[in-house]
């Protein structure tokens, strides 16, 4: 059938094209309120359409299927909740979430990115979970000038390329690794370490930074092993026992770490176990059981318990989705909110449908955003000017009590400068 009348204005017309459009008289209440020049607003949205509302979309892109889907779904749900609480409208525009599934695979991520880029009504992206997917996908966002706010990617490369569109609201692995190593050495007084990682872009990355810092501090790095194995760690643990380290550091995701830890304990290796934010899931204790207690991990996503508003969000989240809250949900929420506020500001300045470049600029300009997970200000490459890094200790083998993990150290660390 014929395209609905609203389709044409929904296209993100380039600025020049918009300027050429004939001016029509259509004083919309909101348009006036935002003090936009009347002609321009009218050019974008004739009165008839203003009522039915034109659509702006924010895409989320996370793994919704496959082994990592529980984290990916948390981010997506967080984003959705943010959108709903925001009211689903910016000015005249209805805002929708377009949730994409990157399957934790770079290829799918990039293909989706191309689809996202091809939809002019998408003005911002909330994603991804995996740095390995974020890095290639963000090349596409960059090419299209589309703003992206990452709720979870800690790999330094994400922002180090200096793309004006790519931001993140979490810390960086190079800092996280350092925080972990310093805590182990200075606070716990451990002198030697055996490092295991999961051979993913994220896990190996954070493990490398831990190793470097540990070396600098004078810790003895007795081993540095990567493994893609998911269940059988017998033959990896045996050499650890022989090496007799003071601690084991694990760079990777909870699904692997939990099993590794449990098998370590079963084999009688009782040294402290430490990891990074990949362990940050209540599933971790389900997998590791009692062994999880006293595990130390660093994270850039501070537990909900540390933020007054987070507890409230947790309740709303669980009510809304009937799934257990994960702290990634809060980050998905904040990333979405930053997108929405950026778009709102851009709409305001443009007085109508903004260009992607305008949105990207506004998102990057985010200052002192008071999110669920703390105050956020982006620096010139899209890192947080000051990111929070937390050292947590697991206190209970009960998954329900994951949120009550003890915060043993909170550090506000400015983004490293090159």
């Amino acid at each position, binding site marked *: 059938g014929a395209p609905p009348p609203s389709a044409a204005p929904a296209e993100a017309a380039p600025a020049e094209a918009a300027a050429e459009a004939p001016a029509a008289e259509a004083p919309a209440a909101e348009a006036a309120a935002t003090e936009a020049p009347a002609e321009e607003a009218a050019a974008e949205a004739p009165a008839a359409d203003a009522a039915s509302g034109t659509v702006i979309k924010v895409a989320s892109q996370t793994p919704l299927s496959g082994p990592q889907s529980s984290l990916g779904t948390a981010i997506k749900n967080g984003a959705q909740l943010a959108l709903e609480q925001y009211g689903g409208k910016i000015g005249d525009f209805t805002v929708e979430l377009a949730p994409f599934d990157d399957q934790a695979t770079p290829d799918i991520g990039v293909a989706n990115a191309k689809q996202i880029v091809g939809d002019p009504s998408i003005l911002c992206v909330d994603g991804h979970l995996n740095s390995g997917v974020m890095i290639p996908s963000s090349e596409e966002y960059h090419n299209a000038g589309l703003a992206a706010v990452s709720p979870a990617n800690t790999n330094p490369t994400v922002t180090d390329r200096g793309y004006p569109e790519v931001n993140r609201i979490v810390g960086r692995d190079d800092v996280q690794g350092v925080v972990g190593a310093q805590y182990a050495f200075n606070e716990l007084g451990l002198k030697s370490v055996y490092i295991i990682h999961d051979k993913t872009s994220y896990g*190996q990355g954070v493990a490398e930074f831990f190793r470097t810092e540990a070396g600098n501090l004078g810790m003895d790095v007795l081993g540095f092993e990567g493994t*893609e194995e998911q269940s059988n760690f017998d033959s990896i643990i045996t050499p650890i026992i022989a090496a007799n380290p003071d601690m084991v550091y694990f760079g990777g995701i909870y699904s692997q770490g939990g099993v590794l830890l449990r098998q370590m304990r079963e084999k009688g290796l009782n040294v402290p176990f430490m990891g990074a934010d990949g362990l940050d899931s209540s599933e971790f204790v389900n997998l590791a059981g009692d062994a999880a207690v006293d595990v130390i991990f660093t994270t850039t996503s501070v537990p909900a318990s540390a933020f007054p508003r987070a507890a409230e969000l947790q309740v709303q989240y669980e009510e809304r989705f009937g799934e257990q809250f994960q702290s990634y949900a809060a980050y998905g929420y904040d990333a979405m909110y930053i997108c929405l506020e950026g778009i709102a500001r851009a709409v305001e300045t443009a007085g109508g449908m903004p260009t992607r470049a305008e949105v990207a600029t506004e998102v990057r300009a985010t200052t002192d955003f008071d999110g669920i997970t703390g105050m956020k200000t982006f620096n010139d490459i899209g890192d947080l000017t000051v990111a929070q890094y937390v050292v947590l200790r697991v206190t209970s083998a009960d998954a329900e009590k994951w949120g009550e993990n003890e915060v043993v150290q909170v550090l506000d660390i400015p983004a490293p400068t090159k």
Partner: protein
Amino acid sequence: MSEQPGKSSGSKSTKRDLSDEGLITRLLAGPLGPIFVIGYLAVVTFLLYREPRALLLRFLLFAGLLLIYYMPHKAWLKLLLAGVTVVAIIPAVGLKNPFLLEIGFQVATFATLALGLNIVVGFAGLLDLGYVAFFAVGAYLWAIFGSQQLWQLHSSPGTATVYNVFPLGAWWFWPFLIFGITAAAGAGMLLGTPVLRLRGDYLAIVTLGFGEVIRVLANNLDKPINLTNGPQGITPIQRPPLPDFILHGALPNWLSQVSGRTIGEGDMYAFFFYFLAVVWLVFTIAFAGRLENSRLGRSWTAIREDDVAAVAMGVPLRRTKLTAFAIGAAFSGAMGVIYAANRTFVSPETFSLTQSISVLVMVILGGLGSIPGVVLGAAIVTMLNIDVLQTLSLQLSSLRQGTGMIPLIGVPWAELPTQLDPARYQRLVFGLLLIIMMIFRPEGIIPSRRRKLELHEDDDPLAPPADSENVLITSTGGD
């Protein structure tokens, strides 16, 4: 490409398929057929231009190509129509929605891979479960030399500083296309030489192992020297330089005006890669098709049918099998180079066993040994993977955010549990599709003449279902 009609058995096979296909072909017969097809294409194009993101229309456009394939007309007419669709319509709509170009690019990429694998599996009958390794060889070849990886041989992944100069200029892409072919063919021989004595499933497991070896190497060769940057993958990888008038200035400006959205460098590259991949695909099709109907192609079929008899007829077993491996590999090697440049990023995840399997599925779904079938299979699997289910989920999600009701049961969309998102069940749907296809159309969607006869010779509409002993007769047909 003017083939004398009826000369080669290739064109004969198409004819036979056509006459068997019946309905569509009969409907399209006569002079009204082309007019109908042209009209169809025009309407779909027009609608797509108005509504560039409609999944159904996208789908109809690709279905148009299938219609053209089934037209019972002269080859030149079909080629002309197909050419217009591929060269003009898809890019034109791609101006509006660049995702179409991405689909086109991916379909071309995987169709090429599938055609290469088809030579090994379909023609020569050697089951290769690690085919994607050759793709990886090509991709990593250009990734290593076309990026700054060479500066970083001695730093751990992710810790290196970024330089501004690349060791090789971007134009090296072109020579590397050739190198990619050579390297992949070499890898094919390297794998082939020791394992060709193996039969059937032994070969399958060894090739599977080889595929894993290549992937694990890519994942782990970040030490002792950092060749592949490990799991981090290599980025950025250079794209071939395009003349300035294409990237900037009048042409993109004009395109911007036509399309109503800014056409930038990225878009121009999307066009470029789309065309490059299509060209390479066309080349591959021609290459494979002509080889099939040659002495070499017959030798492949012969060793597949009965290698003892083939050798007795003077077909050198090792050399013939090795050629199959090498040629099959070569296609995907070049595609690897193209793919790396298109993505500007490679990482080991792309080259997993699942990917190898999915290429094999394309080959069999489309029709083992049948070139048009294989291309169609690649198109279907790729679109299913990156487009259809994804888009359906999106639309569902969009409905869910609205206030509408689900028809028939009267429950608001918003209350539909997200558990039911099709995107979450990619594999379930895909798996089911495979099973159903194999049961009801095992010879593939567009079967090769040979397979079709092989499989349907004993089709007996009145016979009891396939579990009857009737089938057992053919199962022992070998020897």
